[in-house]
């Protein structure tokens, strides 16, 4: 019994730590519980889809996919187009989804190929890939659009005639999904369609795990060599995992942006990877194991902390700025901590395994 509690604590040290920090900060910040709950509902509906898109690569043993940034960029390109063509409302949103699909699939394919050439270093490679593609994205959007790619709507172009502006008002599709159908509980407004999309994704993930493809990914995630020698197409399956993840991230970014209502063409996607990953890890996921509850609790914890930190900082030390830097520190620090714990734990497990084999053999020899 005692061992089980100990194990639970060790496995969930990160979320527990976060809960403590949050509980301490709530009274300090002076924010009301109702306000917090409304914020949480809002941020859940806005961010959960993106965080869920991280799950499949983890199942396939490819670690934290910083390359979801690529999917986000695909979604943004789609938004530029529908804004240019002035397609509004839910139609606009779904058209954006349709345009995102092939672009994100292509990006995911490229990402998968690159990651296959960097087996064992997927995470840092996907991070750098994200930066690199960001450069290509800029090339396309800042220089190509308006010149090589025709853009009619001058409101979104820079004054020099080509290149997209940094801030685009997405008034066409603002809250298109969220306000599609709403449901009110007391004073809280719940965006039904968005939640529906998230639930569908969860069902998809659960179902996916039970397919042959999901089984193959699980096998690859544990041991590439054994999978290869049993005939599983390792490289292809890994690429599929990244493609799926990138497509989901594209859709996730669309959901995110339609809620916010404005798009920072060159910045909106940059921190996405980092925040989504921080949230997932805060929810107790690790580099090799992540589940839907991790995503859910992670988003709640991360974003609550996000909202509380500046206020708590202001009340406690008189500086909201410190609170902001503090939440940046927590985001990065948590990722560093989880990565360290994961690697360290893997070493310990390998050692323990070897010791066990040594013991088992010595017991046998003794028995002989």
């Amino acid at each position, binding site marked *: 019994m005692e061992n089980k509690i100990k194990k639970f604590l060790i496995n969930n040290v990160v979320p527990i730590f976060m809960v403590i920090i949050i509980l301490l900060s709530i009274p300090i910040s002076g924010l009301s519980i109702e306000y917090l709950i409304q914020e949480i509902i809002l941020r859940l509906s806005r961010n959960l889809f993106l965080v869920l898109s991280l799950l499949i690569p983890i199942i396939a043993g490819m670690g934290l996919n910083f390359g979801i940034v690529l999917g986000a960029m695909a979604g943004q390109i789609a938004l530029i187009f529908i804004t240019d063509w002035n397609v509004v409302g839910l139609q606009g949103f779904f058209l954006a989804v349709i345009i995102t699909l092939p672009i994100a699939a292509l990006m995911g394919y490229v990402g998968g190929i*690159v990651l296959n*050439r*960097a087996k*064992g*270093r997927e*995470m*840092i*490679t996907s*991070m*750098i*890939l994200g*930066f*690199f593609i*960001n*450069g*290509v994205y*800029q*090339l396309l959007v*800042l*220089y190509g659009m308006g010149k090589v790619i025709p853009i009619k709507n001058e409101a979104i172009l820079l004054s020099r005639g080509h290149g997209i502006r940094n801030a685009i008002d997405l008034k066409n599709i603002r809250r298109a999904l969220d306000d599609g159908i709403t449901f009110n509980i007391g004073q809280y407004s719940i965006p039904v369609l968005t939640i529906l999309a998230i639930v569908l994704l969860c069902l998809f993930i659960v179902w996916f795990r039970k397919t042959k493809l999901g089984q193959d990914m699980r096998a690859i995630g544990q041991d590439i060599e054994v999978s290869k020698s049993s005939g599983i197409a390792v490289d292809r399956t890994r690429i599929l995992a990244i493609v799926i993840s990138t497509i989901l991230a594209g859709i996730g970014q669309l959901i995110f942006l339609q809620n916010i209502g404005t798009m920072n063409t060159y910045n909106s996607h940059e921190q996405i990877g980092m925040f989504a990953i921080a949230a997932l890890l805060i929810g107790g996921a690790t580099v090799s194991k992540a589940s839907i509850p991790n995503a859910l609790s992670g988003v709640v914890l991360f974003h609550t902390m996000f909202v509380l930190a500046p206020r708590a900082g202001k009340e406690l*030390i008189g*500086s909201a*700025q*410190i609170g902001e*830097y*503090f939440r*940046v*520190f927590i985001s*990065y*620090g948590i*990722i*560093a901590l989880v*990565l*360290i714990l*994961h*690697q*360290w734990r893997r*070493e310990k497990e390998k050692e323990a395994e070897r010791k066990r084999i040594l013991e088992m053999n010595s017991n046998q020899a003794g028995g002989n």
Partner: protein
Amino acid sequence: MNNIKTMLKNAGWPRIIITLFLLSMYVVSPFIGINLKSALGDTLVRFGMNAILVLSLVPMIQSGTGLNFGMPLGVEAGLLGAVISIEMGLGGFMGFAGAIIISIPFAVLFGWLYGHILNKVKGGEMMIATYIGFSSVAIMCIMWLVLPFKSQDMIWAYGGEGLRTTISVESHWHKILDKVLHMPNDMLPLGEMVFFAILAFGMWIFFRSRTGYAMKAVGTNDKFAKATGINIDKIRVKSVVMSTVLAAVGIIVYQQSFGFVQLYLAPFYMAFPAIAAILIGGASVNKVTIVNVVVGTFLFQGILTMTPSVVNNIIQTDMSETIRIIVSNGMILYALTRKEGAGSGK
């Protein structure tokens, strides 16, 4: 003929493309009205600014601890040294030397802790280093706001909190190395070059010492190192400390040339250009020579200097930022997708 072929194969396409790109810009520039001499001069100044930061990557690569994505840690130590030196009112060469001397104990401490963490996570160093670097920048941001500095040169004029984002060193030690040692008509930033040469020479000497040989063995083949009685963990920590200290020195040299101390989020992404530069120069995740440092820094800074002017003049648009992003990250991506030998990190 075969020799050239092997050389080209070893160099790899991205390096060849970048070199040709740079050469073509030099060739084109007189035709579009760019003063080649001043452009080269600019490149050399930037070389002097950045070379030591690139050099700081060498110890960790040699010891197999990977590319030092955690360079911000060393940079922060350097920044601490710089602001304390200004707070103490040191000026001229004393200020510069003071900044370096003060930063060293910080760098040693940070590097020591950082090295111990990296030892516990062999095989996943690069990723973790990145996030340690990021976290340290965030923590120092809080420090800059909270630490009790009083110097009028550094705090906000109208009573905001903490230190300013950029602090001018104009009156302290701006371009001090150049003032100490300079060439007629400022053709070369001689001061910085000499300083770099001294440090590079120091590194060359180090790698001919007993510890240096041990470090090379650890990075090349850790089984061999272990069988030769070398304490792998201790050597790795030493290499991390060396890299961190050099990064601290590097940022101080950078600032004295640039003219400003940049705090808060400035160091955030500083590791990436340096890493891109050394990779462009021919290094890999676990193999490097000082020639890589020199060639790489020159090529990389060359591109950064030439591209705005050349591209601007040709297509009337400033693409320099985007090109910088593509070149530096593309180079790192190339290095990460090579099949490397032993001792590679994640």
